[in-house]
C-alpha cells in the first residue's frame, strides 16, 4: 500500500522514481551520488507493508480455546504464551494481594507431582524460560525454549497451569518478601508520586488503589491460592499465543492432546469494575525533605480506547508531550530552559474505563514552579491555537511509519492478536489504523484538545522538598506554586508503609 511520506522533490525524486521502477541499472545512479544539502531533499523508495491479519492466524481447539499461531523458523526457539481471564480486580477485599501471589506462586511453588525445587531445577537445566503472573486485569503465563526441548517444556508448562503445587514454604517466603518490600514504599519519590497520583485519579475505593498491607498479606493462605486458581485457571478462560519454530498444525494437535480431559469451568469472569470517583482539581503536596529534585504530575481523567476521537487524541498528545525530544513539553522545559531531564505527557485511552491524562517532569526544587508554569501554558496553548502543519505532518508520519514495529517479531504479533481477543477489540482496526491517523487535521487536533483537556479540572501533585520548592527560584521570583494554583494546597502525609493508614493532617 501507499504510505504517507514527505514527497520527493526535484532531481532526486526523478532518480528515486526511476530506481523504484527498476529503470536504472545499478551504478547508473550518478544523480544520487551527490549528497543533498539538507535531509528534506532526500528521496525514498515506497515502503510496502501490509500487516498480518489476525484471522489468518486464529484457530479454535475443539474445547473452544482460541489459539493464535505465528510461525518463524529463523531460530530454533518456541514461545507459548497464555492470557487468562482473571486479575487483581478479583481480590477479596480482606485479602488484597491474593491474585498477585497466586500468579507468582504458580511458577514458584512446584506442582502436584514435582517439588518446587525439582520443578525449578528441571526448567533451569532445560534452559527454559517459564513464567506466570497475574496483573490488574488479566493473568498470563509463558514459556520459551529450544525447539528440541519443546515436548519436555510443554510438560512443565501444562503441569504448572493445571496442577500448581503452591508449596507452603515458598508461599511463606513470598509473603515475607512482599511485606519487606512494603517497607520501601516511602523511600523513592517516584513510588510516592505514582501511588498518590493513582489515589488522586481513582479514589481510595477502586481495586486499582487498594493497597496490600501487612495484615492482608499475612491473612493469605495456601487454601486461598488453591481456590483462586481453581476458580479462574481453566480452558474456558484461556487464550493461547504460539510463535516461533513450530508447525501450526502440529502445535494445534499437541495443545488439543494436552487439554484432553480438562473441563472448561463454568460462569463468566466478572467484568473489570470502573472507578466510581471524580477527581478533585487542586494542588497536592507531599514532603520528602532529603531530595533536591521535585517530581510533578499534572492531569485529569482521559477517555476510553473505543472513543472515535482516539486518533485525534493520539496526535494531539504526541505533539504536546508524547513525542519524545521534539514534543512541545520537552522542547520547552528541557531544551529551552534546561529545567528538567525529562518532561512528557500521556493521554490515557483506557481499555475498561477512562484512562488518565498525565503530564509530568522532574526538576530541581527551586525551578519546580517555573517548569510547572510552562506545562500549564502549553496545555493552554494547544487548546488555543492550531498546531503547525509541520508538527502535524511529523506526528502523523511518526505514527504511520512506526506502525510496522508492532509486528517486529512473531511473538509480538501473536501477543497483539491475543491481547485484542482478550479485551474484545475488533482486530480490523489494524488494517485502517494508518489511514485513520493520516486523516487527522490541525482542526481535529484543536477540537480534541478543547474537548478533552480541561485546565480547570487539572490536579497538580508535587513530591519533594517542599520548603525549597515553595521558596522557589530567587532569580525568578515571579514563579511560585501559590500563584499557579491559588486557593491553598492539600498536604498529603506519608502513610504507615505496612498498614497504609494515613496520619491525620
Amino acid at each position: 500500500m501507499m504510505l504517507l511520506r514527505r514527497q520527493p522533490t526535484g532531481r532526486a525524486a526523478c532518480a528515486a522514481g526511476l530506481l523504484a521502477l527498476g529503470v536504472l541499472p545499478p551504478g547508473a545512479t550518478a544523480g544520487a551520488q551527490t549528497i543533498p544539502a539538507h535531509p528534506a531533499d532526500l528521496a525514498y523508495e515506497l515502503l510496502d507493508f501490509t500487516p498480518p491479519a489476525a484471522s489468518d492466524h486464529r484457530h479454535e481447539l475443539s474445547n473452544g480455546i482460541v489459539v493464535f499461531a505465528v510461525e518463524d523458523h529463523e531460530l530454533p526457539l518456541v514461545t507459548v504464551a497464555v492470557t487468562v481471564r482473571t486479575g487483581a480486580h478479583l481480590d477479596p477485599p480482606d485479602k488484597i494481594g491474593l491474585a498477585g501471589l497466586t500468579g507468582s506462586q504458580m511458577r514458584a511453588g512446584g506442582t502436584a507431582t514435582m517439588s518446587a525445587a525439582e520443578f525449578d531445577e528441571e526448567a533451569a537445566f532445560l534452559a527454559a524460560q517459564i513464567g506466570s503472573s497475574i496483573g490488574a486485569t488479566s493473568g498470563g503465563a509463558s514459556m520459551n525454549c529450544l525447539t528440541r526441548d519443546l515436548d519436555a517444556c510443554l510438560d512443565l508448562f501444562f503441569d504448572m497451569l493445571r496442577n500448581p503445587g503452591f508449596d507452603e514454604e515458598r508461599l511463606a517466603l513470598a509473603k515475607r518478601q512482599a511485606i519487606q518490600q512494603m517497607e520501601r514504599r516511602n523511600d523513592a519519590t517516584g513510588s510516592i508520586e505514582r501511588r498518590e497520583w493513582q489515589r488522586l485519579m481513582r479514589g481510595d475505593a477502586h481495586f486499582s488503589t487498594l493497597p496490600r498491607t501487612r495484615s492482608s498479606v499475612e491473612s493469605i493462605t495456601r487454601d486461598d491460592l488453591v481456590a483462586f486458581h481453581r476458580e479462574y485457571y481453566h480452558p474456558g478462560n484461556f487464550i493461547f499465543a504460539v510463535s516461533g519454530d513450530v508447525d501450526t498444525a502440529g502445535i494445534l494437535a499437541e495443545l488439543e492432546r494436552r487439554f484432553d480431559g480438562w473441563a472448561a469451568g463454568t460462569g463468566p469472569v466478572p467484568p473489570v469494575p470502573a472507578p466510581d470517583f471524580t477527581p478533585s482539581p487542586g494542588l497536592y503536596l507531599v514532603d520528602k525533605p532529603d531530595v533536591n529534585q521535585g517530581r510533578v504530575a499534572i492531569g485529569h481523567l482521559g477517555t476510553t480506547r473505543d472513543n472515535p476521537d482516539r486518533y485525534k487524541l493520539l496526535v494531539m498528545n504526541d505533539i504536546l508531550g508524547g513525542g519524545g525530544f521534539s514534543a512541545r513539553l520537552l522542547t520547552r522545559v528541557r531544551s529551552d530552559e534546561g529545567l528538567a531531564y525529562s518532561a512528557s505527557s500521556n493521554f490515557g485511552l483506557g481499555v475498561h474505563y477512562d484512562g488518565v491524562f498525565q503530564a509530568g517532569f522532574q526538576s530541581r526544587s527551586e525551578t519546580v514552579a517555573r517548569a510547572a508554569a510552562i506545562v500549564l501554558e502549553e496545555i493552554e496553548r494547544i487548546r488555543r491555537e492550531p498546531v503547525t502543519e509541520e508538527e502535524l505532518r511529523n506526528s502523523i508520519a511518526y505514527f504511520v511509519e512506526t506502525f510496522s514495529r508492532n509486528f517486529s517479531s512473531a511473538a509480538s504479533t501473536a501477543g497483539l492478536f491475543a491481547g485484542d481477543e482478550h479485551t474484545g477489540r475488533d482486530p480490523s482496526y489494524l488494517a485502517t489504523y494508518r489511514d485513520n491517523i493520516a486523516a487527522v487535521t490541525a482542526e481535529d487536533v484543536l477540537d480534541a484538545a478543547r474537548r478533552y483537556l480541561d485546565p480547570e479540572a487539572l490536579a497538580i501533585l508535587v513530591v519533594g522538598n517542599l520548603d525549597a520548592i515553595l521558596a522557589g527560584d530567587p532569580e525568578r521570583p515571579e514563579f511560585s506554586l501559590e500563584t499557579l494554583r491559588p486557593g491553598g494546597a492539600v498536604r498529603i502525609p506519608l502513610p504507615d508503609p505496612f498498614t497504609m493508614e494515613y496520619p491525620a493532617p
Partner: protein
Amino acid sequence: MRTLVGALALAAACAGGTAAAQQVPVEEVVLDNGMTLLLLPRPGDPNVAAGWVAKVGSVYERPGITGVAHLFEHMMFKGTAAIGTRNIEQDLQIIAQLDEVKAALRVEEAALLEAERLGRIEDAGDPAHRTERHQALMDRFEALLAQQGDLLIKEDFSRIYSGQGASGMNAGTSYDFTLYFVNVPANKLELWFWMESDRLLNPVFREFYAERDVVHEERRLRIDSTPIGRFQEQFEALFWQSSPYGWPVVGWPSDLEGITRGEALAFFDLYYAPNNLAAALVGDFDPAEAKALAERYFGRLPRGDRLPPQPRTREMPQVSEKRMLAYAETNPQVVVRYHSVPDGHVDEPALVVLGQLLNDRTGRLYRALVEEEGVATRASGGQSGFKFEGMFELRGTAAEGHAPEEVEQALYAEMERLKTEPVDPRELQKVKNQNAASTFRQLQGNFFLMYSLLMRDAYRGWETINSDPPLYEAVTADDIMRVANTYFEPENRAVAVYYRKASDEAPDPRLAGLDPEEQEQIRQMQAMIGQLNAEQIGQFIERFEQMSSQAPPENQDMVAVVLELLRERRAAAEGDGR
C-alpha cells in the same frame, strides 16, 4: 539474508549436543578512513536497527573534566551547520561571543568560588554576592542567548528523524564507550547515513550551557534524588583507589560547572575521529546498498591525525579490606566487591560461570541465603569485566529480623564452598545449557543485537559474539575452584553495609519502646552481632544475662532487646550447621 538463515539452519541441525555453536554472520567493512561498518541483514519487518559507537567513555577523562564524555553525548543532538538553525553564520557569531562572555564570567566566578572555599560566603551562586560587572556580564550572556534563540530550530535533529518514522533515537554513555542508536524504516536508510555523518562532520555545539543544566538535572534524577544513589557513588569512589572507574560517568558537579566548550571540542577531535568509531546495521536492508552509502557518507570524515590516547592509570593493588557503613532510606543490605579481571582476561570465563552458579532461582545464593537460612530476601552476584579493570560483586538484602552482616557472612560461606568443593557436573551443565540457549536468544531482537555488536566492538572486537561462547563452554570445575581461590581474599574486597535510616517510627517492632539514641546503639550492636561466631555469641549472651539482673531500671528494656537479638543470632548460627 540468505547467509544468516543458512547458518542458523545449519546450527539448529547440529544442536543435538549440549552446546550449539551459534555463529553470527556479520559482514565487516573497514572504510579508508578507518571507520568500521558491521552489516547483518535479517528477514522480518521493514525496519533497520542502526547505531554507531565511539570508543570513548568516562575512563578516558581526567580530573577537571569528568563528565565531559557524557556531556558531549548530549551535545551531539544539538544540530549541525545544516540542522538546528535558521542562519548558521549569525549562529556561529553568537556562539563565539557567548564563549568570550563566558571566559570573562569565569574570572568573576573564580573570585566568588574562592570566597566560598575560604568560608567568607556561603554560596557562590547567591546573586547577592555578584559585582556589578559580574551581573552585567550575566545580563549580556542572557541577551546573547535570547538573540540566538530566534535563530535556533529546537530539537531539529530529533524532529527530522521522528518525522520520517524513525523511533527510539537516543544514546548512552558508559565508562568505556558512547553509543548512538535509532530504529529507521527500511526505506530511510539513507536518512540515517545523512544524519549521522553530518553530525560527525559538521557538528555545532550550540546551547552548550543550557544543556549542562539538563545534565545537572539528570544527575539529580539518577543520583541525588534516589534513596541510595549518593551512597553508591561514594562506594565506587571507595572501591577504586587510582582507577578512573572511580568517578561517576555523569561527572562531579564542580567539573560539570567548569567544563568549557573548548574542552569539549578538543575531546571530540581526539575521540570522534572515524578510526575510533564503528557502526552497525541489523535488519531489513541490502548490504551492497549500505556499503555504497557508507562510502559516500561516512567516507567524507577525515581520519584523525593521531591515535586517541588510552587511559594510563591502572588500579593500585588493594592492601586491606575497605568498609562503608551507610544509613539510607532503603532496606538493610550488603554489597561485597572484589577486584577481579577486565573483559576478555583468560580467567574471565571461569569467573562469569562462577557468577552464574550463584544466581537465579536455582542458584546457590538464593538457595542458601533466601530459602534455607532465611537471612536474606534477595541475593545475587557476578563478574563485571570493563575494558581496563574488572570486579566481582556479591549482594544481598537482609530478611526482616536479620542484620546485613549476617547476610555478609553467609555470602562468604558460599564463596568458601566454591574454594574447597568441586562444582557438581550437573550444576555446571545447567549453566552451560543456559549459555547455549542464550546464543540463540540474543538474536531475537535486532536492536539488542546491534547494541551488543557495537559494545563488543568497543571492548575487544565484535567477533567475540562468536568466539566467547566456546570459552564459556570449556570452563571446568577445576577452573572454577582455581579462580575462587585467586580473587576472593578479604584484603581484596570492599564492603558496603546499608542500614535503614532511623525514621519517626521504628520499623523494627522490637525497638519500638526505646528512645532514638538507644535505637541507634542497638542498630550498631546488630551490626556487630552479625559478625560474631557461635562461641562469641555464647559469651555475649552470658554477659548480658548478668547485666540484665544488675542494670538500672531505665536500661532494662535495651538490655532485653540486645539479649533477644543475640539469642536469635545463636539460633540462626546453630540452624545453619556451619
